[in-house]
């Protein structure tokens, strides 16, 4: 039997074609080795090839064995995975082009996260009014609280005295407590909401019994609540900052403030006396 015919017969039951070709090449190599040996012994090329294929055995029996050993499923999975990868890479490139174009057209605004203010800051307004912000105290608040899969820490907390002198009928002296909460999560596809009403939907209370609420129809009024406000800042894909401002009635610091988070019943306590945040 010719080598080519023998190899085709022996590999015909391997269903995954690339495997069939690879096994065929290997078997063909063996036949060549044997044929070369016989040729070296003086046989003609034809006789050497006939002897070599005869030495290899019955191709039908070998085909059965090879068909049993070489299951096609892993090969097919490999091929399928190649197609999937190819399609996804093309899709990723096309999506990436659109994404980069969009980013170039609408660049993300640079976010400056809140920082501890200067000891004294003065701002003069066009109408001649002057506001002076005097840093009275600041705290390092340790600890963290886990709520709803998000970790809350307090990277910054400080008290400022704010004075106003000028033609407008503004409150001449205020004490504003600023508490910054940072909510982080490793679930980058599910960052916590950066809406300010995450904070402002409920009232905050302090250890002195003061209540703070957003003055807004349907929320709170200035008859019952002291002024309460919140700015939010994105901090990469994993975190959001809430900069919360509470209008303290005087310069006296409460021991703690309970701050509500989200639209449920969650809240956390920032304890200034102990320098820790807790549930």
């Amino acid at each position, binding site marked *: 039997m010719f080598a080519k015919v023998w190899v085709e017969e022996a590999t015909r039951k391997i269903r995954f074609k690339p*495997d069939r070709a*690879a*096994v065929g090449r290997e078997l063909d190599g063996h036949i060549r080795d044997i044929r070369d040996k016989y040729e070296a012994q003086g046989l003609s090329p034809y006789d050497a090839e006939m002897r070599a294929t005869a030495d290899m055995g019955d191709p039908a029996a070998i085909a059965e064995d090879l068909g049993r050993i*070489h*299951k096609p499923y*892993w*090969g097919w*999975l*490999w091929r*399928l*995975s*190649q197609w*999937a*990868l190819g399609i*996804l*890479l093309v*899709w*990723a490139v096309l*999506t*990436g082009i*659109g*994404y980069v174009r969009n980013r170039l057209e609408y660049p993300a605004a640079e976010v400056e996260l809140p920082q501890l203010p200067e000891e004294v800051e003065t701002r003069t307004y066009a109408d001649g009014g002057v506001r002076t912000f005097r840093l009275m105290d600041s705290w390092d608040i340790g600890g963290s609280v886990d*709520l*709803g*899969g*998000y970790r809350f820490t307090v990277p910054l907390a400080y008290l400022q005295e704010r004075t106003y002198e000028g033609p407008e009928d503004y409150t001449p002296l205020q004490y504003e407590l600023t508490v910054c909460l940072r909510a982080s999560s490793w679930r*980058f*596809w*599910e*960052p*916590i*909401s950066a*809406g300010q009403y*995450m904070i402002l*939907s409920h009232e905050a209370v302090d250890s002195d019994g003061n209540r703070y609420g957003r003055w*807004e*129809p*349907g*929320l709170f009024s200035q008859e019952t609540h002291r002024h309460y406000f919140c700015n939010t800042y994105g901090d990469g894909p994993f975190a959001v900052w809430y900069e919360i401002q509470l209008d303290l009635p005087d310069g006296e610091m409460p021991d703690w403030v309970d701050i509500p*988070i*989200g*639209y*449920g*019943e*969650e809240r956390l306590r920032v304890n200034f006396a102990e320098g820790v945040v807790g549930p």
Partner: protein
Amino acid sequence: MTSRHIRRALRNLGLAALAALVIWSMKGYPLPMEMDFRRYERQSLAERSEILFRCESQGEAMLGDPDMFLGVTDTAIHTSSDTHPLNIWPRNADGPTLVVLPSELELQPVFTVGLVAVGAPEGTATARLTITLSRLDWAEDYTVDGQRQGAVFLFSLAARHGEDDWRSHEREALSELTHQQPRTFLYPYTVEFFDADGETLDVLAYDGYGSGEVAA
């Protein structure tokens, strides 16, 4: 040979998963609408609600996903659509509550907004909404019968004017309705609940923005 195939397949599948993750991230991590609704609830630290009602918005369908959801907790009602991720309405503790679906039910041919009454009294067979829409010097009463949809009643408030002077006021008032939030709900309304004999079981009345709380 088999182990080589396995190795290559695993390598390719790993790279494909990575490519899929990159695509998902560039597209802003989209999910099917109900999973998105649940994600919004988690992101807002809101209680997980029980979905009582879902329907499709024609306007949302033109932008992508047409589904709208309404879910309830003991204290709140959550509504959601693709363009209005999560509206949270306080729920009346002792009676029914009326909320507005976040996107219009129908854009064409008749602009239609959906309002849903949750917590109808036991034995309610029919419900009727009367709402006064207004815009500048225009005001008009609309009365709509509710359609029972499982545990809730849906009121389909459709534009009634054609191409005349009132049309723009009506259309704007209806559009504004879909953006209503409970604390700034503009329009006065009454929802009446009737039993099978036509007897009134309960009345939910609201006098409009600035008038105070919704009274059951």
